[in-house]
């Protein structure tokens, strides 16, 4: 048994074997182990965050992570961006007939590690197998539940003029890493995906209570899209300083080479925080003392205009526009 067969999704003996020998081995916990039709959960608070996301990234393995790590971190981060403390995840696999079990085990193991690192439990799941050619190896869906601290008021529509815009680290690492792995794209740079769970970082910010106005992770569409979404939802503008934007030199150089705007590249372990000016310095200190926020910096501020503008290093300004061309397919 070294390849996925249609029977692994058939509900019979092979399905049971896969569940007990692989999924329970790595994901096992008292709730999941009962193998009931639905997990019954006890929540410590009444206000909850609930989200879902599907993962189809290609290639499945990349420096800094794999599709499994992404599937756990992505959903954990979406919960965290509403101030939710992630507690429970569901995992759904869609497997292609013939997919390597060794590869699946590596993905499952990484997911277990990522869940442990984020402090979440995988409490329910599902596996389907489709015929050869009907999917590309493995697709993963995760959904998550987190509980929300009632003192927080975090929303994409909550940015206010005068707020500071902060990013937790370097821009574009994930997107450029995936891009550099494309077959035949003959450049080798020291690139690594930033894929990481950000709930610890968000928890550290919770002490600032209602002074944290917006949190968002700039995944697909990159920083440019996220800033525009915040501005549009909050009916505000922004002015971002080009000289303040943090980039790894190899990411910047690769962007120049390919003619891409790093603000359009996906990130999987960064957050953008819009915070009250009065706490900006302190927020920065807290972020920088955290493993995933070492390179945090203020990149601009919220204005009462309507445009998201970049002040370039020569002193002119331009609009930060969202990407409309075909960016990479399947980056997450």
């Amino acid at each position, binding site marked *: 048994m070294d390849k996925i067969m249609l029977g692994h999704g058939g509900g019979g003996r092979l399905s049971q074997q896969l569940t007990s020998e692989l999924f329970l081995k790595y994901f096992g916990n008292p709730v999941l182990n009962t193998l009931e039709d639905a997990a019954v959960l006890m929540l410590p608070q009444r206000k909850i965050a609930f989200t879902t996301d599907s993962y189809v990234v290609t290639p499945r393995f990349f420096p800094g992570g794999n599709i499994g790590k992404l599937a756990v971190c992505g959903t954990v981060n979406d919960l965290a961006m509403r101030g939710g403390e992630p507690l429970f995840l569901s995992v759904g696999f869609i497997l292609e007939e013939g997919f390597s079990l060794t590869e699946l085990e590596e993905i499952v193991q990484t997911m277990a590690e990522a869940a442990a690192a984020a402090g979440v439990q995988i409490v329910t799941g599902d596996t389907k197998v489709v015929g050869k050619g009907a999917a590309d190896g493995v697709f993963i869906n995760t959904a998550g539940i987190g509980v929300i601290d009632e003192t927080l008021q975090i929303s994409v529509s909550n940015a206010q003029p005068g707020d500071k815009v902060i990013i937790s680290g370097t821009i574009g690492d994930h997107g450029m890493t995936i*891009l550099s792995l*494309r*077959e*035949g*794209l*003959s450049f080798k740079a020291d690139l690594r995906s930033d894929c990481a769970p950000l709930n610890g970082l968000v928890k550290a910010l919770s002490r600032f209570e209602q002074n944290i106005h917006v949190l968002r992770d700039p995944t697909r569409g990159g920083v440019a899209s996220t800033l525009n979404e915040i501005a549009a939802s909050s009916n505000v503008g922004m002015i971002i300083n080009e*000289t303040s934007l943090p980039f790894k030199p190899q990411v910047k150089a690769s962007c120049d080479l*390919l*003619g891409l705007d790093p603000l359009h590249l996906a990130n999987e372990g960064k957050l953008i925080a819009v915070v009250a000016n009065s706490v900006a310095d302190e927020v920065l200190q807290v972020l920088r003392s955290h493993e995933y926020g070492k390179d945090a910096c203020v990149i601009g501020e919220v204005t009462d205009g309507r445009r998201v503008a970049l002040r*370039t*290093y*020569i*002193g*002119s*300004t*331009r*609009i930060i*526009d969202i990407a*409309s*061309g*075909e960016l990479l397919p399947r980056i997450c």
Partner: protein
Amino acid sequence: MNEADLAQWFINEIKKCKRPLVFMEVCGTHTMTISRYGLRSVLPDNIRLLSGPGCPVCVTATRDIDMGIAFARIPGLILTTFGDMIRVPGSNSSLLRERVNGRDVRVVYSILEALEIARQNPSRQVVFYSVGFETTAPSTAFGIMEAKTANLKNFSVICIHKTLPNALRVLLDSGEIGINGFLLPGHVSAIIGVRAYDFLAKEYSIGGAVAGFEPNDILSAILTLIRQQQSGPMIENEYRRVVKEAGNEAALKAMQLVFRPCDSEWRGIGVIPGSGLMINADWQEYDALQRFQVDVGEPVEHKGCACGEILRGVKLPDECTMFGTVCTPENPLGPCMVSGEGSCAAYYRYR
């Protein structure tokens, strides 16, 4: 002096010139830098920058877009090309629409990626639809040489490469535009060298400055062109850190080996003698036009699209009646709105 101070110094020097002057950039990357850094907003009103036919996607003729679409419709064939090309509207379809309809059209970043696809699909024909100026033509030549070395029998190229100098000549001969100097492209010049433009100064008394792609490179070149109004027109290399007088000999040699000059149709300009590159007889087994027969009807241009006039520098993008209303980057009617290097898209994005 840091970069910001240097920029300010250039701007102040440029402002000392009170004459109305028009300079044309003929490189898509220059168009992008000018728009991205809002250079028009920091220049005085008397200095106007005009975009010429510098975006390779934009100057590709509708007929050639239609031909790519016809190739995509050949059963079993994999058509590979650069990202911007798939969105350019042809007479009544685009490669993107063909892909939605089930044709196998794949976006690649280089010909090497297309070669890899050919290696992995030995039972299928893989065609690389190649556009670009002297900047990308050498890599296409190297790719074709690589295909021969690797004995790839299922790989061929639709070669729509163009060369720049003759297009500048045609623009000037038309007498439609009054320009006082050219910002000459850094990448193209890195391949062909600086002397290829000498005819501009000698025959047309119009100077040029080869410029890099940072805002200060462009500002510096503009200042050079202003100073030439006193000192006389000449071709100056302002991008010495990359561009050598004689160009890149290895790249030129590869181009000479694989290609030969041909007449080429430019959108908005028409057929320009000797301004295209075709695969020569020695390498014709890699010429998709030799390998396949496709029927392409007479092209239908979109009524009201001013891309042609914009490419010739006769109109500015926002002088087109469709600009930003019916024609946007999400729904482009002409190629200048598709490519990030197109002057309409650049105007629109950073307006």
